[in-house]
């Protein structure tokens, strides 16, 4: 589904300029990020590398973008001087946001398609917090409120086009390390009277909450079983159980997320940077690693309406990547050693 056709984007005829705008890339040193991409940098890179925005890969792209923006303005009866192109940063922990670049559309159309928003020595404040995730967004924005028209932007600050890039020095989502289901953990989860329980998924926290982190969720495994797995880490039995446990926590997280999303009618933007946002990213990347917004939105809707389908998609990917099907058949046949 096209972005402008979503219920949260009640505007028509913005698809061509959005597509032209999506050719905008962020360059951090040698790292190139396309729209929707995220990357992990070292703290040193984060604090020292130049940040450059390129509005198109070529001058031709840039010229097409300017034409597309002007065309969109004309279609919506917006004067060109009522639009501006901006680059805004959002440092997530301390809630610091800054405008690093802003030009009216006419001025933008006459300027260079490449904009350096930070150099090694000249960096705005929001770029000085490597412990936080940094989100950088480029927009074409309505600079003043205009007369309201159906299916057209009218409020000052409404964006017509947008691209997003995420930078972090944190560990990205890497799955879950099993924790020990010992007496203390059993007591904590009310499992004192169920000593034979072999695994427990702690998904009490909300994985769609941007403030949640991997540590809030636990994949607990019976202490004897976990120790046995650790002591026999190279057997195919251990390998199979590890993969099954991975699916267990994924399944539990998906159902927990579905419940949270339906309880609170959250949008995709509401859950930005949450654990579940990362899970959706992981399953929405194309072969170049770029998160495809449309695929992500489709998955997001799937989780809300049919979580079991997303569970199946996740299992399909996990089985495909880890060849679990083959190993399970060998196990059943008695060939696994």
């Amino acid at each position, binding site marked *: 589904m096209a972005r402008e056709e979503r219920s949260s984007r009640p505007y028509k005829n913005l698809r061509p300029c959005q597509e032209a705008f999506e050719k905008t890339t962020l360059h951090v040193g040698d790292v190139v990020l396309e729209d929707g991409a995220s990357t992990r940098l070292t703290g040193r890179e984060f604090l020292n590398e130049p940040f450059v925005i390129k509005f198109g890969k070529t001058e031709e792209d840039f010229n097409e973008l300017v034409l597309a923006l002007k065309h969109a303005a004309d279609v919506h009866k917006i004067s060109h001087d009522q639009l501006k192109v901006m680059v805004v940063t959002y440092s997530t922990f301390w*809630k610091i946001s800054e405008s690093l670049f802003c030009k009216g559309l006419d001025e933008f159309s006459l300027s260079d398609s490449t904009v350096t928003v930070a150099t090694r020595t000249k960096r705005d404040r929001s770029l000085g917090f490597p412990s936080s995730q940094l989100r950088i967004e480029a927009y074409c924005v309505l600079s003043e409120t205009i007369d309201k028209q159906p299916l057209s932007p009218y409020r*000052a600050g*409404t964006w017509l086009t947008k691209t997003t890039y995420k930078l972090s020095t944190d560990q990205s989502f890497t799955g879950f390390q099993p924790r020990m289901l010992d007496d203390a953990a059993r007591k904590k989860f009310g499992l004192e009277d169920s000593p034979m329980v072999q695994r427990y998924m702690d998904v009490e926290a909300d994985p769609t909450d941007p*403030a949640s982190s991997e540590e809030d969720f636990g994949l607990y495994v019976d202490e004897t079983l976990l120790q046995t797995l650790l002591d026999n880490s190279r057997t195919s039995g251990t390998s199979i159980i590890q993969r099954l446990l991975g699916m267990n926590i994924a399944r539990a997280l998906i159902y927990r997320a579905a419940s949270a999303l339906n309880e609170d009618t959250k949008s995709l933007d509401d859950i930005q940077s949450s654990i579940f946002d990362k899970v959706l990213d992981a399953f929405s990347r194309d072969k170049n690693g770029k998160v495809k917004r449309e695929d992500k939105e489709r998955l997001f809707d799937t989780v809300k309406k049919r979580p079991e389908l997303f569970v199946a998609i996740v299992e399909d990917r996990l089985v495909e990547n880890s060849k679990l099907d083959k190993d399970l058949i060998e196990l059943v046949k008695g060939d696994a050693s």
Partner: protein
Amino acid sequence: MKYPTITHEKLVELAQDFLGKTDLERADLERVEAASSPEGSGQKLDLRRLKTKVTNMRQEHGELLEDFDYQADPDRIEGKLAPMLHEGLRECGMEDEALDDAGFWRYLALANFWWFLVWRHHTCQARVDRQAFKEGGNYLRYLEHKKHEVSVLARMYIRAELALDDGSFELSWKGKTGTDVWQSHLIPVGTGFSPVLARALLRRQVRDYKETDTLREIAKLIKRSNTNLVHIDSNDDMADAFIDYHWSHPSLKTAGGK
């Protein structure tokens, strides 16, 4: 600038040893200092002005607990003390390098604010369960500085930053029972990126108080609108108009909109 930090490992170890205490004693504080390690380079961060503020905060805290308007509203007490934390750190000349370092905030939590964090923890517990941090409790989240809405010091600092308006921090404490406002509708969400918008919401809530359920509906509407908007260039008038529009939105279904 050189500033003190505590590793997460040391925090866990010390907090475990301090369980059950509502305030730390001299020997405990000496252990905190011994466990701390300096980060950064150059001039040492002088925290004496903060310590003076902490003394004032203790006194103010005691007085507020006796004040009928505040004693049943711990969030408001937090809001009243938040600017003192903010000012204390600013007056010390704290730089962004320290602000960004969780180790520094872990140090502050142990060296200066254990008493306050234990109290704040009390206020979140059922009355029968009120006691100091205890074995098996989920107390580390108040100390470890990982999530800004549960890390009490972080949220106080952000609260003061968002509330600060023309030299006044009044919006930090002016609204009553603001837990939901601050911890759900401002700090963790996009609205918190725009101090102008945050202050417009706070002003409106002071002027035209909404109960939790209605406020949640309004917050959802605001979040939905925010997906299409960039507020970085908004001014007070624009933010007030935006909040006013959602405050009286026809879709609000809670009876009476209170």
